[in-house]
């Protein structure tokens, strides 16, 4: 049985250092652990500031895992891989597979 695909939204602030790191880190993690079974969309709050209010983002970068449920939010540059893996529920998934 194939795992439910991940749907991830990352909110960044232009090309600031932490935003760049966040994009690179989540992309690497996804490539290594989800093997293409995901969609990642990166939103620039500078270009679309109204998004921050719409999705109640307080700071950038913020990663929101929309699927699989439950919805989880993670603020920061996603450099702490263990924390990200735990938050996305990937540890359990790896153990199962």
């Amino acid at each position, binding site marked *: 049985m194939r795992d439910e695909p991940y749907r991830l939204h990352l909110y960044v602030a232009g090309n600031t250092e932490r935003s760049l790191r966040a994009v*690179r880190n989540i992309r690497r993690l996804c490539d290594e652990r989800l093997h293409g079974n995901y969609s990642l969309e990166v939103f620039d709050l*500078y270009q679309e500031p109204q998004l921050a209010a719409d999705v109640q983002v307080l700071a950038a970068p913020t990663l929101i895992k929309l699927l699989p449920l439950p919805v989880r939010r993670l603020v920061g540059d996603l450099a702490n891989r263990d924390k990200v893996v735990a938050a996305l529920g990937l540890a359990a998934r790896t153990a199962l597979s």
Partner: protein
Amino acid sequence: MQDKDAEIAELKNRLSEMEDALQAIRGGEVDAFVMDGKTGKQVYTLRGADESYRVLVERMHESAVTVSSDGTVLYGNTALAILLGKPLPQIVGGSIFDFVSPGSHAALRDMLQPPLKPGRRRELIFIGAKDEPCPALMSTALLPADGIDAVTAIITDLREQRRMIELSAAERFARSVLEQATEAVIVCDGGGYVVQMSNAAEGLLRDVRGMHYSDVFHQVVDARPDDMAPPARVSDVVGAALQGKTVRNLEVTANGQQEEFRFFLLSAGPLLNSHDQPMGCILTLTNVSDRRAAETRQRLLMDELNHRVKNTLAAVQSIASHTGRSAPSIDAFRHDFGGRLLALARAHDLLTQQAWHSAMLRDVLRGALAPFLSDRRERIRIIDGPRIQLTPNAAVTLGMGVHELATNAAKYGALSNTAGRVTLGWSLEGPAAGGQAVEIVWQESDGPPVKAPQRRGFGSRLIERGIAGEFGGRVEMDYRPEGFCCTARLPLSEKAYL
């Protein structure tokens, strides 16, 4: 229990404070954050000194992209989204190789070869909206803060530049076609101002670049359009072409190269842009001034011919009537009438050679005597005098008169025997300052005894009155015993001139 309640109350307060703080941040009530940095607390302003640079990067026409060495797009500006024809969320986080044509992958890999550094430039083919290939120049500009293995690059869309090069080449091509065209071609812009013209057109008109067509062409002389409603003005013709219609062969007038008035056949068609929308018009001209002049001349000639035919018929009628009155028999009538018609015809022949402008006195006299010269060449002597020109009517009258003199000489005078002679000559008499006259002398000798005629026939009247009347001069006929002599003294005038 009291302690727990107090702790709960304290926690509620702190939660409330935090919620208030968050609300303040969310509501835009703060302009800076204080955070822990490597060297203690650091203040991060929400609108810092780099705000203007960030706005510049966001709004510039060139694409900006931050890409890691493995090709992950970490950042892109709005221009990048436009270049690639996709929303940024679908670009950032993806691989830049997905947006570059496979043929450019090697060059791109070369650019992202570690260690990344600024100053690398490559021309790459990106994949734009609807998979359109977009040639662009990518140049690495700066490296982000330490610790990120990425580089920011500027991508310059070369499509516009290529289009300009192609346009420029197309324009050079069009200009050279125009310059070499043997047809007179004029190109107007959408406002009707002349922007280009062929050398041939410049030869016909003059350099009218920059002028409005209505100042170049004056009026439609003759409307011969292919479609039904004939346009009455040049503005209608050019206006129709500017709206995409084609109008052919309207006759118009314009000032020619030497400011002379000239006639042209004008055809007009739209000049279309790459979307097939009219952006001006193309006018072609054919110079029909010569044809027009020929038509005018032909009309004049027809009128003149009509006039002459009437005059000639009147002359023939008069000759027939007078010849009939004096002819003793039908045979005599036939002979005399035939001779006179022949003399008339010879005078006409001479005039026709000169397009009925004039005839030379010398040719008129020799022509009239020609029928008599064949077997009496040695007995008729013509002494040429000065060159005198005669108008058509004067030439006919004089030719007919000389014919009558020769006929009389052949019947009764010096040419009626075998030994007689005739001398015909002319000279200018009188002061050169005015009052000059040409004196024509017909002198017979060695003929039979001279007798003045019993009655004046047609010939005598023609000579005495006809010639004198036509030229406003004087004619004397002297039947002297040694030989008949006729002297005509004709003043120089517009009918007989040097």
